């Protein structure tokens, strides 16, 4: 499937800010065998004093932009064509959940794709007793790690209400879980915490969803903005699978990946710093159109 994606993010600062420095993680990355990136343009207004790009540890494309003069707003406009293939793992090779500990202990790879980077709690995904027992109660003897991932994702989908009003970008996952409400970021963090508590390495995926579903299917949740879902490592044979708890489905060809990380902070679309006293507000719009 091929998509033309446009993304617009506008930041407004209440006071002019001096020396604004932003790291942007908005460009979908190439994933061999799964996702190919074609032409793109990234326009930043006003024109930055510096603009460079690099690839971070996890292989995500990062754009660094600096405005060394006072600005009161930043407009980010991305248009990009991406090709995405649906890759279905062979689930017959699934590793049983209770063997995951031994499988992980045998892993010595420390490259970016290694599950070992996705086992520990992080600032936004701290260990949580409630989520831990929520996840454990879903398990049955002999379940495979891959089934465990789906079951946890499904349960979160059922348990949680999607609500943009319930949380904001800095709401801890535990609070969202307590309210049983939140947005894709909360769904993803909760699922990550649950999976790690079961011993399944899990990470945060940021990206896009196609705006209009294939004929006959319902419009998905989260299409109007950037989306987030979860990747999980389910054993050496299968490796990584991806699941979207907000829409209760594997992240297939309707999805376009920007980046992978341990939590939101690793892949936040805009990380910024500026000198200035004021507040900021932002506005985002996304369109993911299928190229016929």
């Amino acid at each position, binding site marked *: 499937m091929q998509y033309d994606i446009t993304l617009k993010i506008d930041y407004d600062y209440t006071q002019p800010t*001096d*020396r604004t*420095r932003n*790291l942007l993680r908005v460009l979908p990355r190439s994933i061999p065998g799964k996702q190919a990136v074609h032409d793109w343009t990234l326009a930043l207004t006003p024109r930055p004093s*510096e603009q*460079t790009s*690099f690839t*971070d*540890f*996890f292989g995500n494309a990062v754009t*660094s932009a*600096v405005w*060394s003069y006072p600005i009161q707003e930043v407009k980010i406009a991305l248009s990009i064509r991406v090709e995405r293939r649906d890759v279905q793992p062979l689930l017959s090779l699934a590793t049983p959940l209770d063997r995951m500990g031994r499988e992980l202990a045998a*892993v*010595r*790879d*420390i*490259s970016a794709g*290694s599950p*070992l*980077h996705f*086992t*520990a709690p992080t*600032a936004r995904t701290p260990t949580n007793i409630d989520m831990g027992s929520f996840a454990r109660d879903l398990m049955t003897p002999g379940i495979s790690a891959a089934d465990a991932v789906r079951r946890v994702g499904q349960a979160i989908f059922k348990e949680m209400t999607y609500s943009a009003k319930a949380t904001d970008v800095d709401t801890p996952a535990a609070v969202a879980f307590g309210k049983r409400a939140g947005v894709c970021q909360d769904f993803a963090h909760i699922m990550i915490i649950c999976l790690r508590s079961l011993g399944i390495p899990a990470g945060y995926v940021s990206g896009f969803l196609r705006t209009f579903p294939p004929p006959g299917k319902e419009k998905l949740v989260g299409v109007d903005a950037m989306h987030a879902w979860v990747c999980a490592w389910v054993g050496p044979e299968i490796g990584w699978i991806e699941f979207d708890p907000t829409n209760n489905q594997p992240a297939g060809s309707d999805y376009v990946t920007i980046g992978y990380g341990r939590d939101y*902070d690793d892949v936040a679309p805009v*990380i*910024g*710093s500026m*000198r200035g006293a004021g507040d900021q507000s932002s506005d985002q719009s996304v369109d993911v159109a299928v190229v016929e």
Partner: protein
Amino acid sequence: MDKPTHTDASSRLLADYTLSDSAADELFARDGSMRPVWKPFVRTLANLSDQELRAKFERARQYLRDAGVYFRQYSEDPLNEREWPLSNLPVLLHESEWTDICRGLEQRANLLESVMADLYGPGWLMTEGHLPPRLVTENTHWKHPMVGVQPRGGHYLHFLAFEIGRSPDGSWFVLGDRTQAPSGAGFALENRMAMRRVFPEDYPRAYTHRFAGFFENFRKALHQLATTNRTEAQQFGLLTPGRANDAFFEHLYIARYLGMLLLEGEDIIVQNGQAMVRTIDGPVPLGLLWRRIDSAYADPLELGPDSQIGVPGLMDAVRSGSLAMVNALGSGVLETRAMMAFLPRISEVLTGQPLIMPNIATWWCGDDQARAFLRENVHRMLIAPAMSVDLPFDSNSETVLGTEPEIMSLLDQPSPDLVGQEAVSLSTTPTWRDGEEGPRLVPSPMTVRVFAARTESGWQFLQGGYARIGPEGDSNALAMQRGGSVADVQIISDDRVPEPVGPSAAPDPTGQRRVRTESGALPSRAADNLYWLGRYIVRFEDVARLLRAYHLRLAINDNSDDPLLSLIATALEEVDIDPADPIPRGLRDRLHAAHNCASKVRDRFSTDGWFALSDLAKTVGQMVDTAQPGDDAARAMSILLRKTAGFSGVVTENIYRFYGWRFLSMGRALERADSLAAVMQTFCDDDAPEGALDVALEVADGTMTHRRRYALDATRESVIDLLAQDTGNPRSLLFQVREMQSLAQDMPGASLSARPTPIIRELLPVRTQLEVMQPAEVTAQVLTDIRAAIGRTSDRLAEAHLR
């Protein structure tokens, strides 16, 4: 071990010196004989009377107080500083023993460098199974952005500290590696200065190895690292978390000692991959940072989003190779407690050699064999989180004894989160106890911090160091958590140590180094704080004068409807001062603001100045509870004004007269000019009540001069003439404007162009106006316009130099 017997005078001092069988001692060797390095020293002590000894030790405390050495705990209170807990006695070690220690630690320093290069490079130690990968991948001190980044100069580690202790068998072992941002070298220097004052005697003084060469060589190495292969001049600086940090004094001290810039995060910006210091001259390139902040706080964009003290983009400067870091970001990972379980083996794998000096025996509980061994021997173990980076005896350490009841159950299953270490006994060293029975030496446990610096010729070690002394008698390593004192570690040679030759670390007589750092780069933040210090102090003073005028009149006329009293009250209220309160909040706020600015530039003025300001703050604090309206409050203001004059004198007389002084003076002149204009606006108004002109003269400190010059009652013209236009009156508007102009002419860049700078362009019309106008022409409107011009002058100054 038997108690040693002494027939000479030292027997009284040593009467309570009881040795333990389970620990080594620094004063006495295993056979009970006094170690030779101590003998002459103990003899000296024994020959002094109790009074002489006490006087000696009081000198040390006095020195440390005068030098302003302090230690602080994290808190909001800027005055929460504790006295430095220096032990009265040094720790003496023979140079041959020290040489052995340094040989072992040099090997360890090189090993740590190799491990670091592997953890941020190929990761071979993990893929080959020499180090469990999760100790790295789950470690918050392992910083992903550093993977694959080549450190500028090729090395990751440049300055290390090792915490070592002596085992019961007399050999030395490593308790912990400090690789992130080791502290203590500055305190070691201060300890040494104090000890040299306490013990001016020939021994051990003349036989003690010096510190100066170590710092001088390290400074050279830093300079080289910052400048090698660079065409542009490069600054180098010490990056401090700021004055709230417990070791801020040390940061200040080292920066001053080495002639480095003392920088905070906001001093630095990154442009096109190059770190720059914001100076009054604009941004200048920064080639190296000796960071005293943890990696997690170094760059809020890439290393930890919560940092308020870091530099956005710093990682970018490191990645581009333009900025050298001492030590490389991410070096904290080497401090991980569990790492010590693997270092002995890694040494053999990487170098083919066993560790010359062992580290504390360590078992990682993620390994089943190690865990089984720990369970067997748990009674003689210290247990801690595997990822812990503190030292077992830090006061806030998470380390507990294995005998704690819940430990056993934790060890029942694989616990990769835990690490066990042998509960070692530390050696004891003599400390001073002055009780009812007279002065005694008593044994107390100690560890020694050893400092290593990478120089052109390899690792160099500070010849001596810094000992932590635990509570008397208890040689268990954990007892150190309860705190104690610190001591100067002196390395004793058999021969006299020659006085250091060549460049000393103190400023050289020509003052060249100082001029270079001052003129080359006065950080904008420092200039900003000096400027505002000047402004706040004058604001404080002006309010105190107005308050005094108010209370003097209140004392003889308590009719609050009196037009003159109301006019002064209104003037006070306009600057947010409540005249009903004898020591109003607004007055204290101004002083706090000044104190706050001063504390941020403490490296730039004298200890006396700092004490004068702290004294002023204390005095105001005490007056709050006691001062009564009227005469009493007026007297209080007079006291404060005298103390302020004292502070201003100390600071303006003693600060080095370069850019920093100019910004301070500019702040004072600008604030004074504005306040003079404000006073004239209010009190020289034609509608002002009877006596207002006298208030104007009084507040501007012009009463005496006016009487002498004009010999008549004050008129509007005579007051304006004196306070606005008299060039001989240092408290006249024109005088202050000329002062500002002359300061502005010496600001950086002012002489580059024939045209006046924007600052001077604001001042020139004001000056001309005041020079040519008749007093009657200086109307309220003119004064309003002048105040506006003064306000713009401040903006121009900020734009040009403080941005």
